[in-house]
């Protein structure tokens, strides 16, 4: 049930566009108003959420240390897993953000009975996660060719790399395949691994379905039910140059794709997808383990009621004297 409602929701979104565009010809609404509104929501929402995190202090210095600390000079420090300076933290964060270092830790050879060695299923989570995120990044960059006049060289390079296999015409993008496969895997593991199924919420399935639908509509447009991409680009260039115009002859499939992406953009800041920004702010990862070297300031540190030595001595003076422990007041 937790998976079914989000599924229906995505179907509903698709139907909404079909009805809106095909029947009611609300091109301007779905082509212009919604995308602009979604982009604004996305930008404002992400900034809002990040600022909200940013204005919450980090009162304590709580890195999770995963390697040897900086200590006596003859003991080798693990400078990335337990950084004591900014450089190490940066490398640690880069590994975390770009290689999913922590998930990778799951990848361990397992011992079975007997000499057989196999790998745990966990590496698949790492692999699928990594493929999904990298594919998504490549796909987003590739899409810039629809949003730039005189497409920048890096975008063209990414596009070239992505179609490097030169399969079919239009050339098959590696990331299209990886993206769909990875998202499908992430969905399947959510419904087949009992523990993961148990912890999953509707809010975990919705983005997966949305991404799958976005991916599928895109793939359909490129490889199967082709749209006239010159018209599409004419339209998208209108959007980014802030002179939106409806270009006739673009198929509904494109509007579905656009609307689903708009939904994703608008949904993004209010959901777990904000882990994109959050991963940078995680105090267990982005702090150096140098709290004995440099004092970490807690902005709301306040004085607390303590039991002072004087009070203590007051309580135990006679016993202390008897035991030969020096006291302040005789």
């Amino acid at each position, binding site marked *: 049930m937790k*998976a079914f409602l989000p599924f229906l929701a995505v179907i509903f979104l698709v139907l909404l566009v079909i009805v809106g565009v095909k029947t009611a010809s609300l091109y301007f609404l779905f082509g212009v108003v919604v995308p602009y509104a979604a982009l604004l929501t996305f930008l404002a929402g992400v900034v809002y959420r990040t600022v909200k995190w940013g204005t919450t202090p980090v009162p304590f210095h709580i890195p999770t240390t995963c390697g040897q600390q900086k200590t006596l000079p003859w003991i080798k420090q693990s400078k990335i897993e337990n950084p004591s300076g900014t450089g190490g933290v940066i490398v640690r964060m880069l590994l975390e953000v770009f290689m999913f270092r922590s998930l990778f830790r799951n990848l361990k050879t397992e011992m079975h009975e007997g000499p057989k060695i196999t790998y745990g299923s966990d590496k698949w989570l790492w692999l699928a996660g990594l493929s999904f995120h990298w594919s998504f990044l490549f796909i987003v960059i590739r899409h810039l060719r629809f949003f730039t006049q005189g497409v920048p060289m890096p975008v063209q390079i990414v596009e070239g790399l992505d179609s490097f296999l030169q399969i079919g015409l239009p050339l098959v993008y590696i990331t299209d395949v990886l993206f*769909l496969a990875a998202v*499908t895997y992430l969905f399947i593991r959510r419904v*087949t691994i009992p523990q993961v199924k148990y912890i999953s919420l509707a809010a975990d399935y919705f983005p997966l379905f949305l991404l799958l639908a976005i991916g599928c509509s895109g793939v*359909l447009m490129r*490889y*199967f*039910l082709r749209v006239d991409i010159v018209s599409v680009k004419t339209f998208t260039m209108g959007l980014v140059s802030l002179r939106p115009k409806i270009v006739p002859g673009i198929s509904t499939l494109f509007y579905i794709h656009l609307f689903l992406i708009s939904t994703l953009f608008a949904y993004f800041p209010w959901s777990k997808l904000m882990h994109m920004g959050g991963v940078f702010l995680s105090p267990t990862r982005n702090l150096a383990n140098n709290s004995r070297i440099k004092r970490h300031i807690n902005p709301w540190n306040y004085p607390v009621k303590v039991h002072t030595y004087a009070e203590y001595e007051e309580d135990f003076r006679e016993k202390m004297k008897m035991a030969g422990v020096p006291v302040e007041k005789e």
Partner: protein
Amino acid sequence: MSMDRREFMKIAALSAVFGVGGPLLMGKLGARNLEASEFGLTPGGKRAKRWAMVIDVSKIKGPADYARITRACRKAHNVPVIPDPKHEVMWIWTDDYEHVFEGTDNPYMEANVKDQTFLLMCNHCDHPACVRVCPTKATFKRPDGIVMQDYHRCIGCRFCMAACPYGSRSFNWVDPRPYIKDPNPTYPTRMIGVVEKCTFCVERLDQGLDPACVLASNGAMVSGDLMDPNGPVRKLLASNFTLRRKPDLGTSPNVYYVIAVIGGGKNA
């Protein structure tokens, strides 16, 4: 993983709609051949059940003949002339008896056979080793026996070159275009990184023309249907002593060499 059937169906259905299965499914539905369009054979093209070539070695007299034939081929297919022998691209070329029919020579054999120069090309084998090894099916055998090379699919792995016992395949180590002096504008070139070879002039046969080499050989080379008992190829094979290259390898080549024998008197 035990999972009841209903759940399995649910997952399967969902992944079919959304997942990898989706595009495939949609691909079937959405393949956009315009309904009435079709493809067909060129009228008047030469057809055969099994294409074969017979080369009457004795009819090719000297270097000028060889040059004329190879030039015709180069011209027709924009085969580059690359001076560096390591980078050479050849569809048809020459060699001596010892190399062509390796192992069949002896010190006392007829001199005019032994000293003869032979034209070499792709043998369009019945059992082509190159086709078996190609990982992308870029090289394939047509039903009429012609072994073809699809440059669009070739990934340049060169397995076929290693597999071919006749050295019939060339790799484009460099961009060939600068080495094509006077290109034939009606025929493409190849790009760097792909393997190429003789195609039996398939594009000419389809148009009803003889292969370029056959045309330039002044009758020394004949191409035709091996399966046609009354065709020119079979007639030549029936009336001459012929050799094929390395028949013991089991590839069953389709290029035959008419060898002059004593008493044949052709060069006597």
